[in-house]
């Protein structure tokens, strides 16, 4: 049986009109429309377009959330195996709509989503992480090249075949790292690359150096006497026995633990869940990583207002930046809601 495809296009490619019709409301037709004809031909019967969604570019741009929800509702009953949007070439609003719908469909239905855009289309930067976007020329003159490439990629994904590198398959890099076995040992690949670099030959690094978010330190706290200070750590300190099973590496969660009335962490009460450092000394005395004892002293001496009655903890070891960001955002919300005014972050 052929795979079921839902196709998304704008009012222009549906033949409804140009800019004057760009506020066209979303609709769905049980038909193959516009560039869908070329897609259909490229599928050679292996997949069929069961419905086409049409939406005006301005309408989508002005009602993004509503239109997205509405279109998801329209698509649902067609039970698609894959979703294809565009190609949008260098049309900015169209590209953004294609990308947004691809991201929404992937999230909602977990099916492959494919679009086609010119690399400078703003939809690329916004949505390449979420969709397979075939690189196209900047105008509809490139339709004949774009459509077969999109169809080919869609069929590959539908059949569960392993995808090659972006340059081999023609899609725009999504930024997702995937393992593969090479023909040579990593050591030999490294020495090969080294020789190329020495000789001044061209070579392709296996991992371009990433660019990081840099967070500027906040200004110093002026009024320590009234500060409510929380302790947050990536050093894995948790109640003995690690009751929430925070992973020793690649943490999927953080813990929130009450320290009301606790003046000192001991080997009887606390330990570390962290698998990435010599934990002997943290297990002996967890204050070494999460200094509750010292903060209690400062509280008694009136140096700080008070120590927040909860601490937050996770394991930094091998934990992805995406997870770390998520933990950070959630912890900050809770701290702010609890009236915490300053945080001491400890690592290992």
């Amino acid at each position, binding site marked *: 049986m052929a795979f079921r495809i839902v196709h998304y296009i704008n009012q222009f490619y549906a033949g409804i009109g140009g800019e004057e019709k760009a506020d066209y409301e979303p609709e769905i037709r049980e038909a193959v429309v516009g560039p869908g004809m070329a897609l259909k031909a490229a599928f050679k019967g292996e997949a069929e377009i069961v419905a086409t969604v049409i939406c005006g570019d301005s309408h989508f741009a002005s009602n993004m959330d509503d239109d997205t929800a509405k279109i998801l509702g329209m698509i649902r009953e067609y039970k698609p195996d894959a979703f294809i949007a565009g190609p949008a070439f260098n049309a900015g609003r169209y590209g953004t709509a294609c990308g947004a719908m691809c991201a929404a469909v992937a999230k909602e239905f977990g099916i492959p989503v494919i679009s086609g855009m010119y690399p400078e289309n703003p939809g690329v930067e916004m949505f390449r992480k979420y969709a397979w976007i075939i690189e196209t020329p900047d105008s509809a003159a490139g339709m004949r090249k774009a459509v077969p490439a999109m169809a080919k990629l869609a069929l590959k994904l539908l059949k569960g075949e392993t995808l090659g590198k972006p340059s081999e398959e023609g899609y725009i890099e999504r930024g997702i790292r995937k393992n593969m076995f090479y023909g040579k*040992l*990593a*050591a*030999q690949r490294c020495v090969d690359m080294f020789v190329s670099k*020495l000789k001044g030959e061209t070579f392709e*690094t296996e991992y371009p150096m990433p660019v990081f978010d840099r967070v500027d330190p906040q200004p110093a706290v002026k009024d320590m006497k009234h500060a409510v200070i929380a302790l947050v750590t990536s050093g894995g300190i948790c109640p003995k026995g690690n009751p929430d099973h925070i992973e020793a590496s690649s943490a999927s969660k953080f813990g929130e633990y009450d320290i009301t009335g606790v003046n000192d962490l001991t080997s009887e009460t606390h330990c570390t869940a962290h698998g990435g450092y*010599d934990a002997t000394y943290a297990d002996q005395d967890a204050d070494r990583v999460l200094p509750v004892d010292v903060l209690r002293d400062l509280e008694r001496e009136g140096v700080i207002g008070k120590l927040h009655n909860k601490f937050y903890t996770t394991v930094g070891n091998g934990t*992805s930046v995406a997870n770390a960001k998520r933990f950070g955002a959630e912890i900050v919300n809770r701290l702010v809601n609890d009236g915490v005014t300053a945080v001491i972050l400890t690592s290992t």
Partner: protein
Amino acid sequence: MKLELHRLKVNSLKFGEKTGFADGVLTVNKAEILALISEDPLLGKNLDVDIAMPGESVRVMPVKDVIEPRWKLSGKGQVFPGMISDVETVGEGQTLVLSGCAVLTAGKLVRFQEGIIDMSGPGADYTPYSKTCNVVLVLEPSDPNMDKHDYEKACRIAGLKTAAYLAKSCADVKADTVETFELPTMREAMTQFPELPKVGYIYMLQTQGLLHDTYLYGVDVKKILPTIISPLEVMDGAIVSGNCVSACDKNSTYSHLNNPVIADMLKRHGKDFNFVATIVTNENVTLADKKRSSSYAAKLAGMLGLDGVVITEEGFGNPDADLIMNCRKCEQLGIKTALLTDEYAGQDGASQSLADSCPEGTACVTAGNANEVITLPPMSKVIGYPEEANVIAGGWQGSLADDGSITVELQAITGATSELGYTKLGAYTL
């Protein structure tokens, strides 16, 4: 300096009366090994020796170290100097190697940080040690409350002693093949191949405490300043592993003995470059140590007048900072670098892979994303303790299923993303 590696190719293992080698079969006297390792009062009474062969439905876990049996037939000193033999300079003479054979130290966990080796199935593709005929030591401490540093040392020494014992017991057999390495003095090296660039290797060693340590002639490497070593000393066991946390990218003693970067650089020496120096350095936890060691390693490379260096990292996260400092400081001295690392890009591969970076790191090879998840099917036999899958680095509560299958990140598999580049795994960007 001249070293001959006399190789006996081990194709099979069996227990028997007398430890020795004949026709590709290594016979192992179990009682002798048990007697040898029981000498250590730190090890308990319930010790065992087992065999794990390539292709068998066998899982070994948790694994601490992997060691290739070697024994010096002639020349100064003995294998693993400063650990189980006198502190004499090694790297000259003749050394017997039981190729295709390894000693695995397994058993009661030191801490939740050791690795998994499957001898068959999908997991076997990821670890180099599914292809070796393995003598497995199943160890436990004599006192369950023993200091973990002491227990780690006891396990480490038991493995080294067994590896040396096995090779020593085959010393009467003539080698199948002899490989000869002859390296000139530094003075001669500097004038050889004047038309070729002079290059070196910066060999980073993990040195962060319990299960993160490495030893050089018995010295805890966190206490050294970067120094120069001959590749031939490495082949005789001058560098010994004391680490296995996130076992995928920790250099086993086996991978030090067979360092594939050194092997490849020696092979291309005189053709693509003049390989004149190997510099060992550490990865300590404090910023001052990182600055000192990276400056010192780069300085040595500069003093030697090197045109380029290959730099291998050991571990991830914190040591990424050491890798980047070494890279940047060498490049600033005009020394070209190629880096060998691995990645922690998240289970979905969508996060950045390194914890530090610099624009100078233009040539970077990676041994794969260690966060990628794999399901290891049940095995007929497990040597060790499968329940540790729920707590080891790379596992989580529920990693071990009722049917005995284990779902973990690759980081739990010994040697899977070896940063000495001992596997063919790598990654690319989708």
